[in-house]
């Protein structure tokens, strides 16, 4: 439920570094809280966005929730699989359900993110 190789934000996003690129999604806990996800709205590809600013939104049947960028960066890719199948976030939040890839502009911001252990404590 909390992969050790990921970093976590207080707002329930996860982040994984892959070379120069960071992959970002929402945690299994967040997906469960939202319920059935029916639409992911990201139209910030190409934009450079500050840490904790909104890069998109996620719609479940009952609620809408903003997506916040865990670290500053340029949005380079949106997971287009989510357009046809947003429920991937519910079924596989840490793999097929990734949401965006970014090119971080300030990697030191990673230090403020939580480890799996810390995140687990935070939501306990």
């Amino acid at each position: 439920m909390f992969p050790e190789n990921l970093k976590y934000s207080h707002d329930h996003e996860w982040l994984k570094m892959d070379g120069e690129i960071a992959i970002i999604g929402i945690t299994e806990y967040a997906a469960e809280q939202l319920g059935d996800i029916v639409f992911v709205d990201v139209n910030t590809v190409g934009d450079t966005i500050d840490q904790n600013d909104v890069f998109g939104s996620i719609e479940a049947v009952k609620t809408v929730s903003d997506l916040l960028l865990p670290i500053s960066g340029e949005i380079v890719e949106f997971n287009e699989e989510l357009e046809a199948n947003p429920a991937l976030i519910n079924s596989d939040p840490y793999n097929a359900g990734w949401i965006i890839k970014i090119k971080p502009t300030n990697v030191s911001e990673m230090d403020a993110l939580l480890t799996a252990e810390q995140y687990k404590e935070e939501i306990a």
Partner: protein
Amino acid sequence: MKTTVFKEIHEKLGAKMVEFAGFYMPIQYEGLSVEHLHVRSKVGVFDVSHMGEFTVKGPKALELLQYITSNDVAALHPGKVQYSCFPNGKGGIVDDLLVYSIAENDYLLVVNAANIDKDWAWVSQQNEKFGAEIANISDQISQLAVQGPLALKAMQKLTDANVIDMEYYTTQTITFAGIPNIVFSTTGYTGAGGCEIYFKNEDAVKVWNAVFEAGAEFDIKPIGLAARDTLRLEMGFCLYGHEIDDTISPVEAGLGWITKFVDHKDFIDKDYMLQLKADGLKRKLVGFEMIDRGIPRLEYEVCDAEGNQIGIVRSGTHGPSINKSVGTAWIKTEYSKIGSEIYIKIREKLLKAVVVKMPFYKG
């Protein structure tokens, strides 16, 4: 916060519990979409014990109800149920409700949980002029809504009364699961068919167990209030605080069909609504379907193509059975025609939608 008698049962079943209308209620068990689709295809059970119940009896009962409700109570006869609302004397609605004709001069009103206190004060105040025998029995009564195409078949196992052939919106007082004097009606808030069952709190656990035992062969499941909302919205049924509230009249909210301007019936706001109709309605409740991708939510702005506001969203969701995003809105009459293109402002963007005929789900 109030609880229903089924609280422990919901918790044991692993329901997600939240506060709703002042009650601690199950919002979801397995997952909203699964539960929603289960009601459409089989049978599901909702704990709706939070709903309020008033009895209105005696020789003045009809006169009181004719005056305070919008529908024609004289058209009711014992065994019939009627959807209605309480106009508020200021061009709005106090609440919507069901009026059950149990017997001659014996009515049961079923009102929304969130409005029980307000409704009771209103009915009591109006009754000063009439003197009907009224009582608020909300705290003594529990209710289950058993909904879905297999509901009546399953419930028939629990009674000798013929319930499977009951017409929509009728009621009988029957012995059910061995318990006498149970009010059973073919009503509901899902459009999936089925019934609603009213009983005393002390019989509640016995009824729950009997219902689930009888329903086991039909794959009966408990359903949360989240699915109740998506089911009702797919049918275009009004929800108080959304499609209707104390600022909009029944005739503007698409409830002209339960507002009867007949000679033998004087009622609150009758003249006001006649005038409103004569002048031409300025706004109307409509249903719409999203063309662009996005989900409308309560109080989002409805705009024309230039971004000028022409209305306001009252409900919105993604409908699991229709697999579309739909909503309701109060909108200026000139934009209310079926097929009219409108725009919903979602996160500062104008997303295209089209006015459609309700219900959204045509099953």
